[in-house]
């Protein structure tokens, strides 16, 4: 076979999954640089960093967490519509574990006092977190069972929990919106240690997910199952267990996102927490270049950038005074733009440009 010079430079960059999300983010930030004064200014207070840029990342943290789990699910060729609802369930579980007295109809005064005591928690924080995350993981496991073993289409299987989930969240708290007064809990979403604490959480989950997928064979198997589950099965990959793992992990990520979100607004609001965030998470993954409905190759980092892109759009639109309703339309435009970017035609065009450049240096 004749081999031409395999010049990787330009092509490698444009074919990389990071290329388009990063480019999009750069364009948005460039837009901000021009239109919004002081957008990039960062203040230091008490050794912590504050500013619009930091806010973008902080506000993106819930979607970033969701997008990590969602990436794995979409890579297997599925989707998880229930993550928003699972966030709500997680919030309810956490709130209840910290303060079950809220639900009591009658309380002796010494307990009554505890209800809004910022230092009181019924269960220690670590138990609250662990139990909440176990519940969220079980939610994911349930989805995984339906998809992998009962063989229900992912969209339908996870729709069940998406619809039922918020009801379950209400049931857990007996229909009450529990306010969370416990001070240390607020640190999860609002704490600051040079950077917002939630960003460390994102980084931690990202690193864990990266190690699981790229330092073991799991990432390869997820991609393989997404691309061709039959070939994967023939090759001895336990396709069902791989799916189960992906959905469970997605549930876990939703649980963590639920902790962050409820700690941010200090309540367990079953009808607000995580509302429509499943769509943002899916969008983030799609912007990150993992193909919805087909799966296969994925990049966790690209999905994270995708999540930031979504938040950056929101923040910049608000910064220039766009109304909330117009924002939805603009998001829609971005979706179209992204889908166009990934279409075969545009891809082929870009490929052609880079090939020609390489052929005639």
């Amino acid at each position, binding site marked *: 076979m004749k081999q031409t010079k395999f010049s990787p430079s330009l092509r490698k960059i444009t074919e990389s999954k990071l290329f388009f999300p990063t480019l999009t983010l750069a364009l948005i930030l460039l837009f901000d640089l021009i239109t919004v004064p002081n957008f990039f200014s960062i203040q230091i207070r008490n050794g912590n960093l504050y500013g619009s840029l930091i806010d973008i990342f902080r506000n993106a943290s819930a979607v970033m967490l969701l997008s990590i789990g969602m990436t794995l699910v979409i890579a297997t060729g599925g989707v998880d519509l229930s993550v928003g609802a699972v966030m709500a369930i997680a919030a309810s579980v956490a709130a209840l574990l910290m303060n079950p007295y809220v639900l009591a109809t009658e309380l002796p005064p010494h307990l009554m006092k505890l209800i809004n005591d910022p230092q009181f928690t019924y269960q220690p924080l670590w138990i609250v977190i662990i139990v909440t995350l176990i519940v969220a993981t079980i939610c994911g496991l349930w989805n995984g069972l339906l998809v992998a073993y009962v063989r229900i289409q992912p969209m339908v299987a996870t729709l069940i929990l998406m619809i039922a989930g918020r009801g379950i969240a209400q049931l857990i708290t007996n229909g009450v919106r529990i306010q969370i007064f416990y001070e240390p809990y607020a640190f999860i979403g609002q704490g600051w240690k040079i950077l917002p604490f939630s960003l460390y959480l994102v980084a931690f989950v990202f690193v864990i997910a990266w190690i699981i997928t790229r330092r073991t*064979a799991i990432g390869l198997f997820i991609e*393989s199952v997404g691309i061709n589950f039959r070939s994967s099965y*023939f090759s001895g990959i336990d396709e069902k267990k791989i799916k189960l793992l992906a959905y469970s992990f997605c549930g876990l990520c939703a649980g963590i996102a639920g902790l962050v979100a409820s700690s941010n607004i200090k309540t367990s609001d079953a009808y607000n927490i995580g509302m429509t965030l499943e769509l943002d998470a899916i969008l983030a993954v799609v912007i990150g270049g993992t193909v919805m409905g087909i799966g296969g190759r994925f990049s966790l980092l690209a999905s994270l950038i995708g999540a930031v892109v979504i938040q950056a759009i929101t923040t910049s639109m608000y910064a220039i005074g766009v109304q909330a309703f117009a924002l939805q339309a603009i998001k829609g435009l971005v979706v179209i733009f992204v889908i166009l970017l990934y279409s075969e035609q545009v891809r082929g065009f870009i490929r052609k440009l880079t090939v020609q450049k390489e052929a005639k240096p």
Partner: protein
Amino acid sequence: MADKDTSDLLISMRGINKAFPGVQALENVDFDLRYGEIHALMGGNGAGKSTLIKVLTGVERPDSGKILLLGKEVSVKSPQHAQSLGISTVYQEINLCPNLTVAENILIGREPMKWGSIHWKKLNTQAKEILLRILGIDIDVTRTLGSYSVAIQQMVAIARSLEIEFAKILILDEPTSSLSTHETEQLFGVMRKLKSEGVGIIFITHFIDQVYKISDRITVIRNGTLVGTFDTSTLSRMELITKMIGRSITVLDEMLKTKAETVKHIRGENVLQARELGQTGEIEPFDLDLHAGEVVGLAGLMGSGRTEAASLLFGLETPDSGSLTIAGKRVEKFSPNASIKRGLVLSPEDRKAAGIVDDLSVRENIILAMQAGQGWFKYISRQKQEEIADKYIHLLDIATPSADQIVKNLSGGNQQKVILARWLATNPQVLILDEPTRGIDVGTKAEIQKLVLSLAEDGKACIFISSELEEVMRCSHRIAVLCDRKKVAEYSGEVDQNVIMHSMAGEL
């Protein structure tokens, strides 16, 4: 050549160039097709045959060069455009819809209508009639295409392409790779008839015999460049092979010499023992023994149950009768994963649906089963992966610019080699090879047959399945014959080919 009068030609391709990243797939290739001729396009795996077809039918755009159709220059924009120009094509990789029924696949876009909606009954009878008339096969056309074997799928694709009226040009890219002699003969009959009507046919195959049986002219390409166009009657087989592989024909000599009988063969201990193993509706209970150092061939016509038997042995299906003992241990858990761990592997016949993982790299495809055998956590290091991939790329002569090439960018035959590499890499004790040489060129085919025999010499056991009886006979120490989903006979030692053929047809 360029100044030659081209008006009597159906197609004339001039100076075609096509490069992919890392590969110059076609370099200044000329190709002509006359009225009423069958023109064979020959070349080794990765020579550029399919690419030339894709350029002609608008799947790929050439980097330079021109295409004249009936003397007029055309720029073919898409496969649909090619079709409207009178070019009907069967591509190497079957591109029909596995989820639709056979009938729908044949008549899609040309469905018979009744009161503004599809006339289903007519659709089905028409499709059935077409299959019977063209290829002489009678199957249930209301089943989904995906539920049928590769051979049937291939025939459906052929039937579909032949049903297009007004086609002036018919292109068949390896249409016979999984057909048996009978269906191939049927196809040839249709081709001859079309030829007499003035249709020009481009025919790609790796079967030398078929080329000599049917073609008028032969064009050979090698490594993307044109070797030449020859009249079939003036070109000897040896010359043709030499032109294709670019070296002398010692390989072919060897191929003819390497026979199972000539290889030193020590029959070792029993490694696989099937007793009354069967699955209702798929394969009737059968007995089979396999010993270390032995190659057992499975012969049978299409639909005889070869693939079904292999599926049971590999644990793709759970048998509902009988027992299976591998290496002295009775099998309780039937799954591919468990089989791989036991050292038993199956290289499936359906390369596209059950073989390659097309968006993964060559390297990842090669180590996939090995990794699955080792589990999730014992990840094979990148360096080790590269070593393994390089070893098999070298051993099987896989044409790829690098181990990191996405496997779907490889030529059909080279994809097949990647699948073989995947199974060899697991270092199995028992290999079941279902059509391992499908779409593989003459030179490499001989290499693979040699490889199978040398594996047996090393004490491995092998079950060899092929629709090509000669190949089965050459490679096997023993041959089991299946007919109508039943094992009907077993032969060892010198057997006459005719005996086996009769037995395959159920006449013994």
